[in-house]
C-alpha cells in the first residue's frame, strides 16, 4: 500500500483525524527529538520540547500554508521552542548558585558506562553549531538522506554534505580528547 504523504496526513489531521495525526507523530517524533537535542544539548529537555511541539503544531495547523512541506515547518517550531527553553534555562542557571551533580564515577582509562558515553557525546556536540548538530543527528541517527535533510531544513544538498563532513570530523576529535578526561561534574 502506498505511504500517505505529509500533505494527506496534515489535511486529515485538520479535520481531527486521529490516525493521521498519529502517523505524523510516528514519522516525526525522532527527528523532532534530535532537532531539540541539537539546540538544548540535553536529553530530558529535548524530550519535553519534542512532545510540546506536536501539540503546538496541531493547534496551529492552519498556519501551515503548504501541508506537503509539513516537516520543515514543524521542525522550525521544534527549533524555536528549544531555543526559547534554552534562553529560559540560561536565565535560571545564572540565578542558581547550587553546583550540578552528576552520577559519573571512575577516571581516565576505565570502561565507560552508557550514561558516560552519552555524556561524552553530548559534551562533544556542544561545540558544534545548531545546524551542524541537526544535520549530523538527522543523518547518522535518524537515517535521513542529504536531500531529505536539505528539504526539511531549507538548505542545499551540498551544504548538508559539507555540514555533515565537518561535524563528523569535529566530533571525532572532541571524543578522542574527552575520552581522556573525567565526565562532567567530577573533580
Amino acid at each position, binding site marked *: 500500500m502506498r505511504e500517505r504523504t505529509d500533505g494527506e496526513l496534515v489535511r486529515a489531521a*485538520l*479535520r*481531527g483525524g486521529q490516525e493521521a495525526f498519529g502517523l505524523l507523530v510516528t514519522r516525526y*517524533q525522532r527527528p523532532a527529538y534530535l532537532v531539540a537535542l541539537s539546540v538544548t544539548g540535553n536529553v530530558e529537555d529535548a524530550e519535553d520540547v519534542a512532545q510540546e511541539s506536536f501539540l503546538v503544531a496541531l493547534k496551529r495547523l492552519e498556519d501551515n500554508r503548504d501541508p506537503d512541506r509539513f516537516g520543515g515547518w514543524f521542525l522550525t517550531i521544534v527549533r524555536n521552542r528549544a531555543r526559547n527553553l534554552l534562553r529560559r534555562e540560561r536565565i535560571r542557571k545564572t540565578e542558581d548558585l547550587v553546583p550540578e551533580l552528576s552520577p559519573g564515577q571512575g577516571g581516565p582509562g576505565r570502561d565507560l558506562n552508557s550514561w558516560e558515553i552519552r555524556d561524552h557525546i553530548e559534551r562533544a556536540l556542544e561545540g558544534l553549531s545548531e545546524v551542524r548538530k541537526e544535520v*549530523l543527528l538527522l543523518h547518522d541517527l535518524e537515517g535521513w538522506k*542529504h536531500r531529505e535533510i536539505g528539504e526539511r531544513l531549507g538548505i542545499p544538498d551540498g551544504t548538508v554534505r559539507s555540514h555533515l563532513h565537518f561535524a563528523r570530523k569535529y*566530533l571525532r576529535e572532541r571524543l578522542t580528547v574527552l575520552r581522556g578526561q573525567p565526565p562532567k561534574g567530577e573533580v
Partner: protein
Amino acid sequence: MSDLEEHLSLEPLDPASGDPGFWLRFHSRVMGDAQAELARRRMTGDISVVDVVFAWRRALVPMALMAAAMAGILILGHQPPLEVQVVALEEVFNQDFSVRPMTAVLSGDDGIQTGLLAGAEEGF
C-alpha cells in the same frame, strides 16, 4: 567526503537505545495530549450548513416574522386610496351601445315627437 562514509556511533543519544519502549510511550503521551484538540477539530468539521441554520433557527424565525410584518405595514402605509366610481346600473348596461337609451328617446328633449312614434306603430 563520501556518502558511504561510516556513521559515527551516536546510538547512545537515542533514548530507545537503553529503553526499547521509549518511543511507544512518547507517542502515547503526545496522542493523549492531542485528544482534546483532535476532538474539537472533529466537532467543527462535522457541522454542516444545515446545522448552522438550525442552530440559529430560534433567533431567525422570530426575526423573519418581524421583518415580514414590518414590510407589510410599510407597503400598506404607502398605498394610495382606492377611487370608487359610482355608476348607475343602467349606465353599465348601456355603456357599449351606440344607440341612444330609451329614456332619452322618450323624454323628447331632442325633438322627437311622440306622435311620430305612434304613427309609425299604426303603419304596421
